């Protein structure tokens, strides 16, 4: 059996390791008393770990029919999308909430942006074919694709708005958003291919591995940003410049001559 096939050593590692690491990260954050500040992220981390434990067990037990796996999978993705939406809302509130001038804009952005992305996701889902013998398999692929249209779109809006307004991120919030963003973009691409094209089994297995590897990278990013202390950059207060007197004089002359 090749390394890039389902149930290979690599496949087991990539499914088990990131989820276990995420559960450990959740426990460490709890012990450090960060559960109040990162409440939704903690819920997300433990949800992912529980989702993995259930799905991995079902996958290994041969007596459980495949359709049951897809039933559980489909329901868990639905729940995961809701938790992700709450997590992204919390990130938006954290980034924009510190600035009174932008707090309202942040709320408007996530509401209207979210609504627009939801419409886009619905259109994308409506165009995807249901071509699997078991409709739940196709439905799960389409649900994942639609979910990542919304998630990656929201994260993109968040990064673009923060860059445009030159907002300062909190170290932990930035790490969570970065991990989510990278993971969401790769997942969007892979699920779009899986939901809209006739791939061979080996092709699907490769994309599955890519998804799992990306999630592993995201978990490592979260480990770094949530557990490694931020380097304290000595911020030198930049003094505002004296005005250029030559420019003032020139403009004054121009005004007097008018």
């Amino acid at each position, binding site marked *: 059996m090749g390394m890039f096939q389902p149930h290979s050593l690599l496949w087991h590692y990539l499914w088990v390791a990131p989820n276990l690491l995420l559960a450990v990260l959740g426990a460490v954050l709890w012990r450090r008393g960060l559960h109040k500040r990162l409440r939704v992220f903690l819920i997300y981390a433990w949800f992912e770990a529980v989702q993995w434990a259930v799905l991995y067990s079902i996958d290994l037990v041969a007596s459980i029919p495949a359709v049951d796996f897809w039933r559980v999978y489909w329901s868990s993705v639905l729940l995961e999308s809701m938790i992700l939406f709450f997590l992204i809302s919390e990130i938006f509130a954290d980034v924009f909430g510190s*600035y*009174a*001038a*932008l707090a309202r*804009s942040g709320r408007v952005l996530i509401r209207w942006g979210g609504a627009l992305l939801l419409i886009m996701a619905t259109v*994308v889902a409506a*165009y*995807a074919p249901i071509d699997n013998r078991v409709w739940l398999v196709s439905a799960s692929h389409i649900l994942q*694709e639609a979910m*990542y*249209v919304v998630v*990656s*779109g929201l*994260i*993109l809006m968040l*990064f*673009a708005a*923060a*860059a*445009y*307004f*030159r*907002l*300062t*991120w909190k170290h932990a919030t*930035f790490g969570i958003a*970065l991990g989510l*963003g*990278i993971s969401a*973009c*790769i997942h*969007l*691409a892979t699920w*779009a*291919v899986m*939901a*809209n*094209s006739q791939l061979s089994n080996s092709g699907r297995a490769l994309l599955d591995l890519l998804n799992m590897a990306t999630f592993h990278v995201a978990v490592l990013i979260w480990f770094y940003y949530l557990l490694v202390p931020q380097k304290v*950059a000595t*911020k*030198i*207060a*930049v*003094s*505002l*410049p*004296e*005005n*250029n007197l030559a*420019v*003032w004089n020139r*403009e*004054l002359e121009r*005004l007097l001559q008018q």
Partner: protein
Amino acid sequence: MTLAIVLVIAAALSLVVILWAAVSRSLQVSKHAGLASQIQPLDVEAFRNLADPAEDDYLRRRLPASEFRRVRRARLRALAAYVQMVGRNAAVLVRIGQDALASSDPATAEAAAQLVNQALLLRHHAALALVRIYGAMAWPNSNLPAAPLLDGYRQLSVAAMLLGRLQNPAAPVRISVW
């Protein structure tokens, strides 16, 4: 399959934007030294003239329609350049204000918070104003109220002066030519 290709391209572009934001965030620290020199003094009188509806009305009355449209578009292009400068100055002041937020002096920290909020609001208004200016270029006869932007810039200038005085009482600070 076409949809899949479109989504893969969109995902790749989004990933590039997110990674660019991550890299530029880490590079921001090293760029702080040159921040103040990035502020460009703004000729507010010229700005006010370009945004003045009375000037536009005067030109509309005096010029033939086609000539007026040509002149109005030229004025709008100049106005767009001023608004972009306002937006850029606001962005620089956001960062300068953010650096001063951690000041141990409560008055300086308060002035910095005020500067950051006003600069953010102004950058927001500048973005909206640019959209309206480009819209007005397509329909040169439409009105373009720019008063909020001028008022915002005046308030921002006052906030910047306040912070500048608190940081360095000896140096006069202005970011515009009144």
